[in-house]
């Protein structure tokens, strides 16, 4: 792996360079407390120190709503509406979210490629950014706190700039083609990188490893936590809509008035909605709020072969953006039983 340094005074210029290559998206402050990935007009708006965005980066590859095809009932034809394949540069992605995107890949590309997702993803450049955890973060116990794949460049904060890890050939070319922004790293930079990582690791409120969490949960499906906590739940779906790895979608046909055609759209669904478990004949395999609540806890703790992690990457969004203040991490620990991981 190659390492270079991006000095602080070159960061804006580097962002301008990225912006010239396609549409640049990055973290922005959108309100008093919240951040979100947004298109970057002025590179000075990019927020380098943020905890989490309200919407996950998957939205750039798997949009909230898209038309998958239009149909023509007169000629009985369908016309797929493929993405244009414009370059998408996503800047400032934290490690947990990068694993989140790899998990998305495992479902949308590895098994049976979804062309809509794949085209966008193949035209995407991912620039990672280091972060310090708050009390909602638990990527450490999910083994998603440090990434060795899934990014083109990864920027680690130094006192006077960033130590840049190069992850792909694309990332390598980005540096090769813009040598004016980068320097060789010094031994001081290496020390500072190590110091940052040590400091970062000490800040997590949970330590250890949760690889066995899914077994603990499976053994205690009747744990009283589920009833107590699901009672507080609004069923609003914020936990899944803000999640970087939730990927359930709903499909709907919108015919034209004259009936000669229409479009088929797909849009984000949530397992917290009643209709998610509704099947033909009016049967529902998750009829109650508790059933739906429990499903998310199991699904998020299931195992993803590609990343060898759980589907939950420990970003803390489902708790931070829960209007009912339901504490996912604490609830999992309660079922786990030890209060502190293995």
């Amino acid at each position, binding site marked *: 792996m190659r390492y270079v340094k991006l000095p602080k005074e070159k960061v804006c210029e580097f962002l301008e360079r990225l912006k010239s290559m396609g549409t640049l998206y990055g973290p922005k402050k*959108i*309100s*008093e*407390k*919240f951040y*979100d990935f*947004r298109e970057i007009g002025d590179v000075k708006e990019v927020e380098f120190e943020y905890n989490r965005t*309200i*919407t996950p980066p998957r939205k750039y590859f798997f949009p*909230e*709503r898209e038309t998958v095809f*239009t149909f*023509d009932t*007169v*000629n009985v*034809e369908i*016309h*797929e*509406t493929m993405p244009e394949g414009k370059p998408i540069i996503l800047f400032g992605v934290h490690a947990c979210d990068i694993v989140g995107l790899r998990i998305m890949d495992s479902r949308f590309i590895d098994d049976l490629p979804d062309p809509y997702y794949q085209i966008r993803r193949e035209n995407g450049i991912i620039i990672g950014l280091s972060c310090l955890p708050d009390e909602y973060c638990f990527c450490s116990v999910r083994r998603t706190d440090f990434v060795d794949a899934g990014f083109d460049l990864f920027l680690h904060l130094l006192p006077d700039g960033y130590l840049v890890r190069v992850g792909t050939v694309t990332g390598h070319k980005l540096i090769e083609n813009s040598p004016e922004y980068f320097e060789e790293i010094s031994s001081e930079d290496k020390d500072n990188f190590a110091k940052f990582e040590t400091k970062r690791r000490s800040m997590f409120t949970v330590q250890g490893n949760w690889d066995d969490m899914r077994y603990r949960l499976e053994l205690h499906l009747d744990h009283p936590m589920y009833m107590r906590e699901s*009672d*507080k*739940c*609004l*069923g*609003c*779906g*914020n936990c899944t*809509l*803000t999640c970087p790895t939730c990927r359930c979608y709903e499909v*709907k*046909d*919108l*015919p*034209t*008035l*004259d*009936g*000669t*055609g*229409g479009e088929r759209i797909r*849009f*984000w669904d*949530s397992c*917290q*909605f*009643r*209709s998610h478990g509704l099947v033909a004949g009016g049967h529902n395999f998750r009829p109650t*709020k508790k059933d739906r609540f429990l499903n998310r806890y199991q699904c998020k703790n299931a195992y993803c072969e590609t990343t060898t992690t759980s589907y939950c990457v420990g970003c803390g969004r489902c708790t931070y*953006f829960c*209007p*009912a*203040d339901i504490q996912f991490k604490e609830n999992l620990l309660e079922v786990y039983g030890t209060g502190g991981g293995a």
Partner: protein
Amino acid sequence: MERSKMILPDHEIIEECRDVCRATVGVYVLTSCYGCQLVMATVQKIMEIANLVDFKCFYMVSSKSSMHEPVDIAFVEGSVSTEKDLEELKEVRKNAKVLVAIGACAVNGGVQSWSEGDLNYDELYASVYGDSKIKYKGLQAAPIDSYVKVDYFLPGCPPEEDEIMYFLSTFLFGSYPEEIDYPVCAECRLEGNPCILIESDAPCLGPITVAGCKARCPSFGVPCIGCRGPVPHDNSWFDSLALIFRNKGYSKDYIRERMKIFCSFDKNLEERLEKVFGRKK
């Protein structure tokens, strides 16, 4: 493939079909502000609609309307608030193949049903009219499904244009509109808004109100007032939201009043509030 490669439909086929199978549509009003009709009459594609269907009744569009003809699709706006409303509603139901309740009043009773469960008809009458007489025999304002079978519900105050178009086009297609059973809160996330309930403790009813408006008010920083009514199928969690509001310092009366504006006819409202606040005095 590009859209331009689509071949335009043969208009003769359409014309032929129009003579044979032009759907008949009626738009009716009980007690309400006529806002739903106004939205329906001013949708961008109203001319296209007018060419495709035969409006038997639509007072906002034509004075040649008649309430007494059979129709394929009936849209009914307004709550049942008088005996006359009730008679008309029953006749519309008898004449219609498909009946759609449109707007907050028809779907949930509207603001005029705010005091449901608190004041009876005589008390309400006295507080508004005193000893005066009115020409109609009044009834306690109620959603239309209190009296007749309703096939589909199109909520909103007023309803959204894209939903009106979706309902009409699915009916004309020989299909039906899919019901929404999740809250405004979810749409608010999809719109990319920050959450005003979390961030500024706003009394937002987005979590209990049925989606479809693309979080119109919260997108402008205005807390949802619930005009679209409760999430259907008992999935409007008044208790969970009341608990959140209580923890933010709102009083029981404030919470109940606010939730009742558009949800007074939800059978779960009082029971779920009792779960949080205890039994009503």
